């Protein structure tokens, strides 16, 4: 299964230029709540609050609705239909170029176009177009020990994608968490990085005696319930809620960054190798 998926994705890379331009994904509307003395929240909106130990850039996926998925699929079908119509012309053009190239065999051999079919036509994941980053600016609150970002977002499921933005990303591709953000609630969680030793165990403080690549490799991601720092007095306490998490074992490394994973959390989940084990099910 993995092998065939990789093969197909490689083929998608090869085919990418044909269809990338046409896709239109609805942007995720994220409205930052500014750091003011008095804050009024709209009970008709859903809020996401991220707590971190300092200025960090985190990335999140707003999972698409059924309607958005249907629209994405409809766009693909439309583009595929056009590509099928164009294919005989593309093939004829290739045959002319190849015949010309064959006489001298100078330069790169023209590549035969792949016949567009339901199976072969490339189309990116809609989720890859629904990644947004939070921070490091626009903090709702900041002190020496913590930063808070508060934003109104569309109600629905969200997924921690990792740290950094789309150009420099450390993706939680080998283990992440998803959760619901509901209208009328401030769904709060805390994120951070934690240093690891050579055995992969969490350590306090900056690791000593490591070279630069060890330092860049040996840390994990933390996603956990928020601390008391999230109980900002400007926010109605009853609106703040801690989400139930869904375990997400694998994510595509869409932006070609480094891959990482969220560290185990007691009572919630652990890992058996690369498999996430839900500890709630055992209770």
């Amino acid at each position, binding site marked *: 299964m*993995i092998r065939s*998926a990789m093969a197909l994705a490689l083929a998608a*890379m090869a085919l990418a230029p044909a269809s990338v331009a046409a896709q239109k994904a609805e942007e995720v509307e994220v409205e930052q709540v500014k750091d003011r003395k008095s804050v009024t929240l709209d009970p008709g909106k859903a809020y996401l609050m991220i707590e971190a130990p300092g200025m960090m850039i985190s990335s999140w996926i707003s999972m698409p609705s059924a309607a958005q998925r249907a629209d994405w699929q409809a766009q*693909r079908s439309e583009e595929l239909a056009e590509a099928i119509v164009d294919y005989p012309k593309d093939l004829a053009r290739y045959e002319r170029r190849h015949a010309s190239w064959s006489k001298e065999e100078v330069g790169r051999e023209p590549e035969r176009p792949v016949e567009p079919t339901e199976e072969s*036509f490339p189309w990116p994941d809609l989720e*890859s177009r629904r990644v947004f980053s939070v921070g490091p600016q626009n903090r709702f609150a900041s002190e020496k020990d913590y930063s808070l970002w508060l934003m109104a977002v569309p109600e629905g499921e969200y*997924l921690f994608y990792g740290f950094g933005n*789309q150009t420099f990303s450390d993706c939680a591709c080998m283990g992440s968490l998803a959760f619901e953000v509901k209208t009328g609630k401030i769904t709060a969680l805390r994120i951070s990085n934690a240093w690891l030793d050579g055995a992969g165990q969490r350590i306090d403080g900056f690791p000593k005696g490591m070279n630069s690549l060890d330092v860049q490799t040996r840390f994990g991601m933390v996603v956990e319930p928020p601390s008391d720092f999230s109980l900002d007095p400007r926010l109605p306490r009853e609106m703040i809620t801690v989400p139930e998490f869904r375990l*997400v074992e694998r994510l595509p*490394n869409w932006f070609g960054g480094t891959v990482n994973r969220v560290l185990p959390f007691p009572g919630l989940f652990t890992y058996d190798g690369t498999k996430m084990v839900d500890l709630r099910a055992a209770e």
Partner: protein
Amino acid sequence: MKFFLVAAGMACMAAPAFAQEAGEPQTDIEWLAWVPDPVSIERPDLAFVEDEEALDNYEKYYYFHRDETDFETALADLRECDAHSRGLFRGNFTPDPTAAMTQYGPLAGAAGGLIVGLMADAIFGPAELRRKRRINMRRCMFYNGYARFGLAKDVWESFNFEEGSREVSEADRQRMLAQQALVASGPRPQAQELGL
């Protein structure tokens, strides 16, 4: 611009350095699914003198090993980590991963995202590609339960490849991954484990 960046990426998959053997795969897609008989794979010679330079470079030049692991499993694990490094791994981020595979068509792309990655790589060059691959292989194989051992650079280069600076065809990539799998599933090394 995007087209040229993708084309440049694909151009890195050209001209194999190994001679083509009879019965070997003909296309990149076939190479990705290739499962050779381990007897047909040349086992790398891991002998080297452990001098100061070699020790300093263990962070970059290494091989993996896991006990009680057969060749095919090791090859699948190395390919999974290679796919993570290249952005080819599809993931299972929806509740029903089968639906994720079919929803956008099986060829749904890593393509869009990878263009962004390639743009970053175009700016920061092969050093960034090398750095990312080293980190990704170390993390991914560690989480798959493999121990890591150091190698001298020239020994490492005989059955490994870097991203970015050297052209490596899909055929060469898969041949070297098969050699790495042979080592990973072979006799347990006597050297000291390096950890994550």
